[in-house]
């Protein structure tokens, strides 16, 4: 699967299918610090992302 990350903007590949929480664990991202979005829809931590899919991992932490 293709993962779109921010700060800085980049793409990484992760082998799928995997549940969202497994993807975040593999990327060493704390679940409380991001949202995972497929298309324009929010997906839950136990949803499965297929190997041919693209998801955005959007940070929710702001500095101000």
């Amino acid at each position, binding site marked *: 699967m293709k993962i779109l990350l921010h700060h800085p903007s980049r793409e990484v590949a992760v082998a799928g299918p995997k549940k969202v929480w497994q993807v975040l664990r593999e990327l060493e991202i704390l679940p409380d610090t991001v949202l995972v979005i497929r298309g324009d829809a929010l997906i839950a931590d136990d949803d499965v992302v297929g190997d041919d899919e693209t998801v955005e991992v959007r940070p929710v932490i702001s500095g*101000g």
Partner: protein
Amino acid sequence: MRCRKCSAKAIIRLPRHNTAFCPGCFSEYVTDQIERAIKSDRMFGREEGIAVAVSGGKDSLVLWEILSRLGYRTLGLHIDLGIGEYSERSRKKVEAFAAGRGLPFVVHSLREEHGAGLSEIAEGLRRPPCSACGVVKRYNMNAIAFQHGMPVVATGHNLDDEAARLLGNVLHWQEDYLDKQSPVLPNSHPKLVRKVKPLYRLAEREIAAWAVLQKIDYIVDECPNSQGSKMLRYKDALNRLEAASPGTKHQFYFQFLDRQKARAQAAPAEPDLRECASCGQPSTAEICSYCKLVGTLKVLK
């Protein structure tokens, strides 16, 4: 994962409340938390105009959206800090949001007023950009709201912001700041408007999730000046604690508020305010922090 309220498919888990919600029940939860904050802390009434400080980020746009939906009379206040492309994109987000909903707003441009953006001003003054930014925002939000006859300024500070700020204040034992860290700051001078934080019961992730569900187009990029900021380090530490022990941030901040209320009742703080000799705005010193900042800038030019 199922919604704990209606058993439909859940889209978000909230470990700190040991629950999960579907989109409809989650939206209800978010609105309820904001209404509860407004009512329980007596932030403002239906008859009052509310100036909403809007940056173009998720928190302030969600706040503006919900207050408008709840029927409050709002005025958006945007400070264009002149931080290059970041400020341009932020301003466009606010303009598009307001135009799409027919909401009134005011933009105050730092560059138009002083001929320099925040980064140049901070560099000229040899101050950290975030410190100068705080002075600029606090001063202008109050002054503009007062000019427009709005008795209240609402900001988008959330639970994560407040817990991180509390951690910073405790680590440095900044007791003056601890006294002022409240969801409501009353107007202690005729020219000061009330400052309120209606999102303080909601976590940053909950607000971002609501923004995505409601298709609110906010700026995802971070302010370039915030990279490596203390606030981000405090948030990172708290998020690691939260992952190991859900509810930590909530307990830390809400137990502080309980203690603060008890202290305020025992010895209410009485700020010694006068009017700035230069601009007439309320200040604890003869010249307010903003006029000092602007004055130093003029000397440097």
